[in-house]
């Protein structure tokens, strides 16, 4: 008998504001420990939170981008628990009345698209960071992260396997990047995922779920979900029962372990946050936020296909991030004659080289204008495509433009048919047996001649012309 897998995801996204959710402390990542704190985010008595309206607007923008309802009135609540990285003893969050509800994302699946419901997005604040490793009997606490704005994005249990979960997460990740509402760097903990996983027989009610925590890369999320699905199925098939619990995934061992011991304490005693009045937006304010919505990845992809004639694959590669798409459009603006050539050279050549050196497109040593200068020389047959790759290599480490490099290295292609004919005649004279072979019907030998001519010209002969002239002269 088969099993159905049911997955719901809770994603915590750090909002990329300059300051924290409820105080004017910097959110800059990587500062010296505890240098970005104040009495508010340290939970000192008598301090009052004041909401960062930019964080609220960014949360509304995210809600609009997932086609959700924006609650014009939402409110804040306290979630109470004790942990040393939570100095107030409670987290300010939104419980019964969140700012965003009832949205969705369409994700790519094997046979088309699937709609994944998003139950809600609520605003809350991050906790500090605890460090345990290498310490004897103590933990160290850094509260720079305490109070950093978070959006918690809660999906419906609409995903049926690890691949769908990953597809949803990647779509959501790309979306928050495009909206510029989060740095979304997973290694820095700016985009974190908890997964609720259960299994059931088809047609039966939902099974008991386990919550997987500590999933901080797409690879680990997939591993953790697959491990959990197998664990639950084996457990049930062996006559056991799944218990509702939190499990911590250990990426080094590739397995999860129960944190059941802590469950008893999970009674959060939510109550309304008395220090904050309700958060209100007018419809006009929401409309203004909507008006500032950037072009979203799906729209951009379709536009690149229709406007520039790109293949779906290239359009996808070049719309992965807003920076990539902007770079491509700057390149097309500088070399409007051939958007496809722009896409090929950017996607295959430039991005390949950047990847090797681990450089982001925003830090590319070659600007769109400089690459366009190179593409112009390919277009007007000054250099061959092969030589152009060498020029691009040189451009990566120098500030010279394409023309300077082509001149300095003598890469200018020979397109003068007289000069090419002269080389061809030399090659033919040096290889009479092959000439005879070719004329006797071995047309495959053309490749040999092309190679010889290119070699004799030290790669500078125009390959198209070499081909054409060789065919003519070999005929005899």
């Amino acid at each position, binding site marked *: 008998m088969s099993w159905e897998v049911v997955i719901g995801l809770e994603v915590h996204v750090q909002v990329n504001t300059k300051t924290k959710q409820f105080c004017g402390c910097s959110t800059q990542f990587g500062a010296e420990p505890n240098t970005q*704190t104040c009495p508010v985010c340290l939970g000192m008595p008598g301090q009052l939170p004041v909401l960062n309206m930019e964080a609220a607007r960014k949360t509304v923008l995210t809600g609009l981008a997932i086609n959700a309802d924006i609650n014009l009135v939402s409110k804040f609540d306290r979630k109470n628990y004790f942990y040393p990285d939570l100095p107030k003893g409670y987290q300010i969050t939104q419980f019964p009345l969140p700012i965003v509800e009832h949205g969705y994302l369409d994700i790519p699946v094997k046979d088309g698209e699937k709609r994944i419901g998003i139950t809600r997005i609520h605003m809350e604040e991050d906790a500090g960071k605890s460090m345990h490793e290498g310490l004897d009997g103590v933990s160290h606490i850094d509260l720079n992260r305490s109070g950093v704005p978070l959006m918690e994005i809660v999906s419906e249990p609409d995903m049926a396997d690890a691949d769908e979960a990953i597809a949803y997460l990647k779509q959501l990740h790309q979306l928050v990047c495009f909206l510029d509402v989060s740095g979304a760097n997973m290694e820095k903990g700016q985009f974190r995922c908890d997964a609720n996983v259960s299994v059931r027989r088809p047609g039966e009610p939902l099974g008991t779920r386990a919550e997987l925590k500590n999933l901080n890369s797409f690879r680990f999320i997939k591993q953790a979900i697959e491990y959990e699905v197998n664990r639950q199925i084996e457990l049930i098939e062996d006559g056991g029962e799944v218990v509702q619990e939190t499990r911590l995934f250990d990426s080094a061992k590739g397995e999860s372990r129960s944190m059941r011991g802590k469950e008893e304490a999970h009674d959060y005693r939510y109550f309304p946050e008395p220090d904050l009045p*309700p958060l209100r937006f007018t419809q006009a304010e929401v409309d203004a936020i909507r008006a500032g919505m950037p072009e979203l990845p799906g729209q951009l992809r379709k536009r690149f296909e229709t406007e520039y004639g790109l293949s779906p694959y290239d359009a996808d590669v070049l719309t992965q991030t807003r920076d990539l798409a902007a770079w491509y459009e700057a390149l097309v603006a500088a070399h409007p004659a051939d958007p496809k050539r722009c896409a090929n050279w950017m996607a295959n050549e430039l991005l390949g080289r950047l990847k090797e050196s681990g450089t982001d497109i925003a830090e590319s040593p070659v600007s769109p204008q400089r690459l366009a200068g190179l593409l112009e020389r390919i277009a007007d047959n000054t250099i061959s495509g092969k030589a152009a790759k060498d020029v691009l290599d040189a451009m990566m480490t120098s500030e010279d433009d394409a023309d300077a490099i082509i001149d300095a290295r003598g890469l200018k292609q020979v397109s003068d048919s007289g000069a090419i004919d002269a080389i061809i005649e030399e090659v033919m004279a040096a290889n009479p047996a092959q000439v005879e072979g070719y004329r006797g019907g071995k047309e495959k030998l053309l490749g040999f001649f092309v190679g010889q001519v290119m070699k004799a010209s030290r790669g500078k002969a125009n390959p198209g012309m070499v081909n054409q002239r060789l065919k003519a002269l070999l005929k005899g």
Partner: protein
Amino acid sequence: MDIDVRKVAMLSRIRLTDDEAAELGPQLSNIIGYVEQLSAVNTDGVEPIAHPHDIAMPQRVDAVTNSNRRDALQASAPKTESGLYVVPKVIE
């Protein structure tokens, strides 16, 4: 209404002696019972309120206003090391 005073104390990290638990349990139950009288009020058609004061949310502009005051802020901490708070180990 009966209150599990031990559970409430544990959630609040308050240590109680048996005598205190025996005394506080009924007291807490009485308080809850007193407040529970409110549920007798007919609230049909009454809009729930999110906050007792009908005031506008104070709005903060997203600009850094706090500088590093670590030394002063850590002066009251029982123990610090290299700028980090030191607490009893919290993970098993």
